[in-house]
């Protein structure tokens, strides 16, 4: 069984690779390379796969999941400038793909035990563009 909890945060970023020139960055990232930055209301869907606990009937208490997601993701990401304030984006371009992978890395060990594991991370940069990440494996169709 897969259960999903949705969280939101708002953050600013610049899509810029420091190894490229200003012109190359503009050509690669377009308006997202604006050196002053810009922002999004990100929506993240965190999905866990597991069996319900025979006593509680729950894969994970959603209240506990909410606390973990707030502490691990919303608190560090919300109302921040990702490139300057949220590692690893001092070294990695904060594309939606890299944000999804970073969220996966922050959560994987905290949400995995003998009964459940992290299934997928979906990050909406806008309602019209989103990325799914399922770890090293490909997401099932």
């Amino acid at each position, binding site marked *: 069984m897969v259960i999903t909890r949705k969280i939101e945060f708002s953050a600013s970023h610049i899509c810029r*690779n420091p190894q490229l020139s200003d012109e190359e960055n503009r050509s690669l990232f377009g308006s997202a390379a604006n050196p002053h930055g810009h922002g999004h209301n990100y929506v993240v869907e965190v999905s866990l796969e597991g069996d319900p606990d025979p006593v509680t009937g729950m894969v994970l208490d959603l209240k506990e999941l909410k606390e973990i997601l707030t502490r691990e993701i919303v608190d560090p990401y919300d109302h921040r400038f990702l490139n300057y304030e949220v590692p690893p984006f001092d070294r990695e371009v904060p594309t939606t*793909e890299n944000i*999804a992978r970073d969220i996966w890395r922050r959560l994987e060990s905290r949400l995995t035990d003998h009964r459940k594991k992290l299934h997928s991370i979906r990050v909406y940069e806008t309602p*019209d563009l989103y*990325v799914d*990440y399922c770890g090293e494996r*490909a997401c099932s169709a």
Partner: protein
Amino acid sequence: MFRVTRRYQFAASHRLHSDQLGEKENQQLYGKCNNPFGHGHNYVVEVSARGPADAVSGRAIDIDRLDGLVRRQVLEPFDHRNLNAEVAAFAKVVPTSENLGYEICRRLKRNWKEVFPGQWPKLEKVRIGETPRNIFEVCADEIE
């Protein structure tokens, strides 16, 4: 490995009517969708591609290129059109959302390599929302 999904919309009219059935059978089968004057929908099309993140850009797909491909192959020929009368693929094929999904997926797959010549990204699937309640999904592997 990432899956990137981009959402597009177009508005079009259609009529569900099969040449292989009589008038009465068509009316029974398709109901109000068989109205001879046609009717329309705000179609939502989600296009998903799969691939690793590029080491330089940190992205799995160039969205501007995908937007260009979808604009040329889907939005320009379909938006504000009558699918039966103006899209050749539906001259003889009923424009159900199943067949629309196949047609959109076929168009994207056929022209994919021109826009994305490398090994990645690959077209994974197309999802059509005819209305917010009726969704149709086709995997690129299902069609030629």
